[in-house]
């Protein structure tokens, strides 16, 4: 049975799968919060805030994620910042933070597109009714962006799940790491990697189907 090797080393594979899921969920939550904040900065009427947002987005979109992960795990402790005193906890948190920071830039672009897509008349009407800028964002502009940004956010989620594999480079024992360990113990490379492949597909394929279905519905609705 393809992938059967996962049941010979359940400790490695299923702990790995669980770590992958944890990093994905934490990273996605971080990316959503950060991305929305940055998007709000980018559309804000105060120019310097917009520049900060743009700098964030362009920097993280144009540098490799591995470099960021190495920075978080090796560089920060030297400046005196450490996520945790426990080594394993430290690399796990570094990976989750890295995922959030990196994908936050992509989320920010998507949410910004959604915010700019809201009709200007809506914003002007809300302001002239006496809502403050923050209230207008909270009650008028942000709620209207949610619908249009859900399918692209799903795509970012898929990319994020795949990119958690990079956490193996800083030593997080996630799925790909499990496959590499099993390969080095058994020399059964095909089986080891196919097992990891199947477990990744278990995560990405349902996400992909959900995104496509949502997208089709949104296309009809808009």
């Amino acid at each position, binding site marked *: 049975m393809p992938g059967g090797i996962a049941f010979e080393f359940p400790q490695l594979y299923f702990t790995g799968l669980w770590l992958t899921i944890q990093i994905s969920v934490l990273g996605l939550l971080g990316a959503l919060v950060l991305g929305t904040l940055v998007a709000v900065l980018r559309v804000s009427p105060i120019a310097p805030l917009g520049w900060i947002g743009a700098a964030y987005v*362009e*920097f993280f*979109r*144009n*540098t*490799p*994620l*591995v*470099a*960021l992960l*190495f*920075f978080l795990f*090796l*560089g920060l402790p*030297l*400046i005196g910042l450490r996520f945790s005193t426990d080594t394993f906890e430290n690399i796990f948190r570094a990976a989750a933070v890295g995922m959030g920071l990196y994908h936050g830039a*992509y989320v920010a672009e*998507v949410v910004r597109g959604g915010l700019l897509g809201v009709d200007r008349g809506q914003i002007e009407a809300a302001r002239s009714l006496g809502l403050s800028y923050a209230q207008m964002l909270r009650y008028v502009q942000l709620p209207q962006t949610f619908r249009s940004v859900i*399918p*692209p956010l799903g*795509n*970012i989620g*898929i*990319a994020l799940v*795949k*990119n*958690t*594999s*990079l956490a*193996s*480079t800083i030593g997080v024992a996630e799925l*790909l790491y499990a*496959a*590499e360990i099993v*390969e080095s113990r058994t020399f059964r*490379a*095909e089986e080891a*990697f196919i097992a*990891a*492949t199947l477990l*990744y*597909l278990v995560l*990405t*394929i349902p996400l*992909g189907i959900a*995104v496509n279905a949502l*997208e089709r519905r949104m*296309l009809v609705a808009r």
Partner: protein
Amino acid sequence: MRPDTWPMFLNPAIWGFLFEGLRETIYIALASVAVSFPVGLLFALGRLSRRRWIRWPSTFYIEGVRALPVLLLIAYFGIKGSALFRPIFGQDFELPLFWAGVLGLSMYTSAVLAEIIRAGTVSLPRGQSEAARALGLSHAQTMRSVILPQALRLMVPAMMAQLTTVIKDTSLVGTIGVFELLRQGRTIYTQFFNPVEVLLIVATVYFVICFALSRASRRFELGYTPRAARIKIQDIALRDQAA
């Protein structure tokens, strides 16, 4: 941060060392693009084919590979690349790690390029292919002289955007032992114990290249792209940007 680490970057030898890595990075990216463009074009045509026995395997390849992490492909070819080619090139064949990395990266990029090209052909107005067929061109002729030239032209910006992803992804090839830019940087900071400075410099180099490329890609935009094609391209850009 150690106080004495910045002055060491006055030494040209350090920059020469990083430059070697940068050259390797550019070679990996160019080789991957050169391999994955024809392969991607082939799979795009396969997926557009009307014959089921061509269409289904092509679709399976494209969707399957796109659902996988690039690093997994690179790691696999890094370990088993030589063994895969031994039946062809003889028992002593050793696949250089450079080509193992290019193989993994190209496999992924070809699937993405295939999707980009397909998005381009699908977004053309139906009238184009109908007119070509009505003029008596065969399906193959229609593809070659009418659809593909327009579709490829339309997709130049998307393909250039994918090139920036490829350049960022070359940093993954370092994990199997190819001395590209990030890997050279790691060698320097393990020697001098200054990851903050080195990683900032390396990140800046990647940033300059990728930023310039993504800026340049906007200049190739043709005026009007249909909305369905734009959504499809955004999907690809978001889902298939890896590291």
